[in-house]
């Protein structure tokens, strides 16, 4: 747990209460909302955003941001297709290589940020365009389709009745939660975000930690890309466009401070569920997509306003 244990708990409590209220309200609006099938299906739909949001929590806790995740997702999706079809690699090898390519994209972000001291917002704004451009250039706007059946298990199949990617998401939630909350690396992450110089002077390998985190961000974006391809059975260079905004919204809604130093995986997961529940529940209650976007925007602002007001006296 973190330095600001109390105030964090406070935000998460607010969020949890809000979530319960929202779930309750949505359940009364539509009797199809609170069904196992629907909830599991929503899990499937939020898996990609969720995976990326987990590492994005680390990124934002260090005081950084990664806008390029959506483009990395698109790039790895394209590479998966190119490796498999054009280069004739076995699909499992292509999958691994595509994810590694995502990691390299993240590593490049990390290098630009740590070696050249470019602010993360700018660095990833540039690579947002660059990676998307590479995806377009490499794909030449061609889609790759017709994957073998077993591949679709990842994105469309179930394991013991639960969508495959939900298992992956669940496992990574635990891994990320443990790393951020309990390990020395998590401490280094918080310390870096709260005071980078102080962390460096305390013998924390700040640059190494950041490199790892941005690389991990690229890796999970790559993993999400592969899952996404499996879910929709095709690759396109525009996949994942705008993903970064959804991810950042979920993380910030989850109480992670955009200035760094604060935030938890539990918060992110709550933020993620709240967002997905709103999207799904409002649609089931007959609210159209554009109305849903408005509600999510309002909830984001109000949640942060509320937690700011409640936790103000907690700030020293």
């Amino acid at each position, binding site marked *: 747990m973190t330095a600001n244990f109390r105030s964090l708990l406070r935000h998460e409590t607010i969020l949890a209460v809000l979530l319960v209220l929202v779930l309750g309200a949505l359940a009364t609006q539509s009797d199809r909302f609170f069904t196992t099938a629907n909830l599991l299906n929503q899990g499937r739909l939020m898996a990609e955003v969720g995976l990326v949001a987990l590492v994005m929590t680390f990124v934002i806790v260090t005081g950084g941001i990664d806008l390029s995740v959506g483009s990395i997702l698109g790039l790895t999706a394209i590479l998966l297709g190119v490796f498999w079809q054009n280069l004739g690699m076995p699909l499992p090898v292509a999958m691994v290589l595509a994810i590694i390519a995502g990691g390299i994209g993240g590593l490049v972000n990390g290098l*630009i940020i740590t070696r050249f001291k470019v602010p993360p917002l700018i660095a990833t704004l*540039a690579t947002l*365009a660059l990676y*998307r451009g590479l995806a377009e250039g490499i794909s030449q*706007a061609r889609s790759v389709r017709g994957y073998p059946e077993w591949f679709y298990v990842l994105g469309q199949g179930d394991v013991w009745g639960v969508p495959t990617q939900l298992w992956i998401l669940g496992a990574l939630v635990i891994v990320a939660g443990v790393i951020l909350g309990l390990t020395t690396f998590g401490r280094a992450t918080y310390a870096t975000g709260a005071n980078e110089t102080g962390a460096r002077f305390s013998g924390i390998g700040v640059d190494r930690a950041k490199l790892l985190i941005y690389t991990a961000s690229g890796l999970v974006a790559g993993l999400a890309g592969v899952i996404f391809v499996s879910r929709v059975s095709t690759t396109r260079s525009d996949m994942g466009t705008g993903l970064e905004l959804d991810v950042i919204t979920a993380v910030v809604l989850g109480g992670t401070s955009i200035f760094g130093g604060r935030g938890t995986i539990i918060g992110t997961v709550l933020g993620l569920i709240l967002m997905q529940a709103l999207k799904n529940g409002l649609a089931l209650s007959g609210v159209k997509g554009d109305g849903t976007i408005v509600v999510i925007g309002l909830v984001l*602002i109000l949640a942060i306003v509320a937690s700011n007001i409640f936790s103000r006296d907690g700030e020293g």
Partner: protein
Amino acid sequence: MSASLSTAPRAAPAMRPWKRIAAYGQEFILLGAILALCIVVGIVNPRFLGANNLTNIFAGNAYIAVAAIGMSLVIISGHIDVAVGSLIGVLATVSGLLAVNGYPIWLAWLAPIVIGVIVNAGVGSLVAYLRIPSIVVTLGMLSILKGGLISITSGAWITNLPENYLIAQFRLFGIPSPVWFMVILTALVALWMRYSAFGRTIYAIGGNVEAARVAGIRVERSTVLVFAIHGAFAGIAAVLFATQLQVIQSTVPPNLELTVITASVVGGVSILGGTGTVIGSTLAAILFAAIASSLIFLNVSAYWLRSVQGLLILITVLADMARRRRLR
């Protein structure tokens, strides 16, 4: 009074010339990049330097430059606005709806500016008084404006715009009005940033909020004002955007906020606040337009266009970082 007790005043050591240049370096780099690009592309295809094409480079993206002026002020004051694209979409629609529904033309021009000011003053108040990070507020606003716009218009195009409403198509001395807007507003704001007390206040807030507060600057009020001014520029940009063609799409132009932010930042406005000029952001907007145009002239496959743009942004940013390091 016992002034000058000791040595006679020595002349202060003059700033070394390269340091002066480095201090305004980003503008020079951008200007150099624009000129270099024009020369190279002009050699490959002289039509690039034709009056029509240059006019198009300047006029076609002038609304981005105008929006980037306001964005630069916001970023210099230490904040950011990721909702500017949605705001411009909303304001352009408002303007168009007024124009086609028989309201006076001047109202159709003025209303977006006023509404932009009001909306962004609200955003600024949330940022300043409730201490919510600007990126969070504007991320929320992005959704609200975008969703709200479609809910209300359901994306119907606005056509049949009156001829005299299309201000962006007016020309003065043969030069399209957006260019005039861009140049005059940039010059005015640049002067204002340098010679007005409030202009300097923006730098002060972005540089050191606590010091600004102690210096008697009303930080909260100033922040609201900066956002409001940014709203006004978004309004002007929206009018230019809306009147460029005879049709208004009444949706949010995709990725416009990223383009505007990139123009500001590549123009030398530090994302950490406190430095930058609007001349830089305008030059950066022109550079992007020139790049987009030159890639077509150079027969760069459109498939690779975006990678090239991304690379160029990256190179500009890295060059800027290198320059800043030298300055230290």
